[in-house]
């Protein structure tokens, strides 16, 4: 299982990369493996506000549509349009394929998320 140090991980298998007050959000390598070939990604719109746990977007494999829940609250400042045309990028490089970047509205929420090491343990038990 691929992991990247320094990211925050949620138990819904999203990752968060923090740069200042901005956070990039994507799904983990473990998640893309579980989903299989990803054929469609529904991205949020810029300026939309999300509370922790809201459905940020949808990732669809051949078989099913899966909601992606935002693990921290914030307002979308940027989306990765590349994924709209090339959803398979998530399969190829899950940690390079962020879906949205948000302006964090409550950075303290990050403390509830897991480190790479804790997430590894979490996945081993699933």
């Amino acid at each position, binding site marked *: 299982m691929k992991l990247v140090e320094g990211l925050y991980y949620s138990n819904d298998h999203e990752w968060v990369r923090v740069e200042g007050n901005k956070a990039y959000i994507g799904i983990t390598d473990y998640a893309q493996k579980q989903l*299989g*070939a990803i*054929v*469609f990604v529904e991205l949020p719109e810029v300026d939309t506000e999300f509370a922790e746990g809201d459905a940020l977007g*949808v990732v669809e494999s*051949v078989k099913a*549509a899966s909601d992606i829940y935002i693990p921290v609250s914030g307002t979308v400042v940027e989306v990765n349009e590349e994924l709209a045309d090339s959803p398979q990028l998530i399969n190829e490089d899950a940690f390079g394929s962020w879906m949205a970047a948000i302006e964090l509205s409550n950075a303290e929420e990050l403390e509830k998320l897991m480190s790479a090491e804790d997430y590894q343990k979490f996945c081993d038990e699933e």
Partner: protein
Amino acid sequence: MEPKKTSLYETHKNHNGKIIDFAGWSLPVEYEGILVEHEAVRNAAGLFDVSHMGEVEVKGKDAFKFVQNLVTNDVGVLEDKQVLYTFMCYPHGGIVDDLLVYRFTQEHFFLVINASNIDKDFQWMTENSAGYDITLENVSVDYSELALQGPKAQEILQRLTDTDLSTIKFFYCERAVKVAGYSCLVSRTGYTGEDGFEIYLNHEAAPKVWDALIEAGKEEGIKPAGLGSRDTLRFEATLPLYGNELGEDITPLEAGLGMFVKLGKEAFIGKEALAKQKEDGLKRKIVGFELEDKGIARHGYEVAVGDKVIGFVTTGYLSPTLGKNIGLAMLDIEYTELGTPIEVKVRKRSLKAKVISKKFYDKKYKK
């Protein structure tokens, strides 16, 4: 309840199958991936474990009369060793199940039914067997079943048997065919839109024959294939699935499968209701559609025109072979003409779509 394991459970694990619970069975949804397996079946060959399917034997003097009354298609046209696709309907015309009827002799039929319906079907058959001189036996637990599907299926299977497979025509079977030394019932049938065979055999033989087929088809690029590609393949070939296109509240005519209902034959269960529906005209039916906006329509999504809900999606996929977002939907009859603009409700959005022909993929049967 713990899902049941087929005789190939360990085999699937060895092939890294991703196991899910399907209709009470632990079965692989995919091994390498749905798309790879789908493509293998379209271009070479794929091997499926379909041991979850149910089998019922009908034997006795009145076997033909019983089956002819039970199903909508005409069993009277069958020769020995011929196979028929048909429905069993309720008196109101809704579908109990879709099934294959194998005629071994006029006094011995073999019925193949859906896993999720085995108990219901067997009870239905039993209830409707009064007055017929027959014995009915649910033999589902006795059989494993493999489906070898794809343009290379015959070539691969031929390496493992002395029976000349070219003599088994489309929708015919041969009993006691020796495959890799094991006795099997082999029919030229399937659920993918490709040429291929379904192989019924005992549980001891199944893993051995599976391994032999995978080995025999190596050069052609045979792949073990899971339930995921089984569904995308049957969908592209517009083969219906019970629970999606078929159900207790859907008639075969509404499903667009009237060719498997022979209203001209003597009495059968559901005949009056189906004849009346045909005479009165359909109020709704299943059509094909293609999305014009980006997105994927899936089973159960609403279809609308403006504010008016006009139906629901029965199956939808990004078609692996055609690369288009297409689906099947049950729509009110006034919206079923080719080219009609419709909208599919995908989560909070309404996606533009239009009605198209259901013939998504040209079936490659060897007839």
